[in-house]
């Protein structure tokens, strides 16, 4: 409708202040990307330890170490993005519980507590049974930790592109994609062909589903609201078109093709390339989706 109004009225802004550009930039992309790995590896570790307990015991330590590293990366990038980072403690001492930022901080704190306790029982106490018990709680908490960013995006009323439940599904898929890709890189050839195939399928189906969802957004999104239509123009011939498609190809299409080929050829080498491609592409895809709604003039 806005296009028609411009065509009919020839309305042009002739005097205005400079409007804010991108406020949430690459630091927030790093935040989302690192969190996908940090929680995703816990999901995948839980799955493997339940389904293949005899063959996958060795993943306990690397899984929890990777989760600790990436969740702390996520927390680090969360804090450094604050304009007043040394007031971060306000979230815990002046919490406003309608905010998903507050909920996310509390949940992430709980999740960090669990994975640190898991590491303690595994490395210091050598107690694998307790580790496995805590892992179940970790999985339960990893779900809302993964999803809260989608809640935050849904609360961002000004950004029509970020919708619930689409974003929540994309967050879960990103966690499965990143978790399976990381596990493939960590496990190497220690995994049996059956386990590799399982991980490959998780990677492939996550990539396929996420790709389909992005394409559906691209086609049907503009029908929801003119703001979505205007936002998607940035990836439909606009300045983020190349980056968007690069992300889709590297994150989803290349891994899908390589997964199919690796299953057919039983080639672990191809799976490693697929895993690296998925992790790199996920960052690009997340970044584009984060940035483009911020390019729209709100007033």
């Amino acid at each position: 409708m806005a296009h028609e109004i411009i065509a009919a009225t020839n309305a042009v802004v002739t005097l205005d202040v400079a409007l804010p550009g991108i406020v949430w930039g690459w630091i927030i992309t790093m935040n989302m990307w690192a969190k996908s790995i940090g929680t995703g590896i816990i999901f995948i570790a839980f799955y493997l330890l339940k389904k293949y307990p005899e063959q996958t015991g060795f993943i306990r330590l690397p899984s929890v170490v990777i989760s600790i590293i990436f969740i702390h990366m996520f927390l680090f990038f969360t804090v450094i993005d604050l304009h007043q980072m040394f007031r971060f403690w306000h979230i815990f001492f002046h919490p406003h519980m309608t905010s998903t930022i507050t909920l996310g901080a509390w949940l992430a704190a709980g999740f960090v507590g669990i994975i640190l306790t898991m590491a303690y029982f595994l490395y210091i106490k050598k107690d694998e049974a307790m580790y496995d018990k805590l892992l179940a709680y970790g999985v339960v908490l990893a779900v809302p930790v993964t999803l809260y960013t989608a809640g935050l995006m849904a609360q961002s009323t000004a950004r029509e592109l970020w919708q619930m439940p689409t974003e929540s599904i994309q967050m879960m898929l990103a966690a499965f994609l990143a978790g399976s890709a990381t596990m493939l890189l960590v496990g190497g050839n220690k995994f049996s062909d059956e386990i590799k195939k399982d991980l490959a399928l998780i990677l492939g189906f996550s990539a396929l589903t996420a790709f389909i969802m992005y394409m559906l957004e691209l086609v049907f999104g503009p029908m929801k609201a003119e703001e979505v239509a205007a936002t998607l123009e940035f990836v439909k011939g606009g300045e983020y078109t190349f980056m968007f498609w690069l992300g889709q190809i590297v994150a989803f299409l290349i891994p899908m093709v390589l997964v199919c080929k690796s299953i057919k050829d039983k080639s672990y080498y191809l799976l490693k390339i697929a895993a690296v491609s998925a992790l790199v592409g996920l960052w690009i895809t997340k970044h584009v989706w984060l940035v483009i709604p911020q390019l729209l003039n709100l007033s």
Partner: protein
Amino acid sequence: MQLGFLVDLRLCMGCKGCEIACKVENEVPLSTWRLRVKYVDVGSFPETKRTFTPLRCNHCANAPCVRICPVSALHYIENGIVNIDKERCIGCAGCIMACPYGAIYIDPLTQTADKCTYCAHRVASAMMPACVVACPVEANIFGDLDDPMSNISKYIQEHQGNVQVRKAEKGTDPHHFYVGGGNVTLNPLASLREEGFGLFNNLTHLPVGGHH
């Protein structure tokens, strides 16, 4: 008490007196604004017209910025104003992401969120907001929406059918009204905003982070 604002766009002549008064009263730093007047030219020569739209925080009854703020830095005060506690703000910019009107900015001096507060400090002393006082044509009308005898309530009653709010579809229930507005003045997508030097100044965006 529910304080509200109304701008009669038919009266506004784009003098920017309100904008300057706001800057001075609230010491708003350079490259940021609490209140601005946007000029939009409509039509083709010789049938052209210039429109002026003062834009500020809408002090919504269902404010997304209040909801998303993790530390209650953005909060309601008893007269309905959405106020900000800059000492509590952590600068997460969630409110900037949430406000559909682009009315919130990061103050480059304090590194905290800031916005129009309807001059809450003046209102507390029974004074009118600075922009209301500065307007030479009384295009800004401020008052209690709960009082049917207030100027703003009477104005809304008199102009029923010609009172608009921005982005009503967002469900924010703004307490900032316009009379004589239309798509071109109130919908930012309904006018072309080309980057670069235009008629009066350089139309641009601030770099990453939201300020120079």
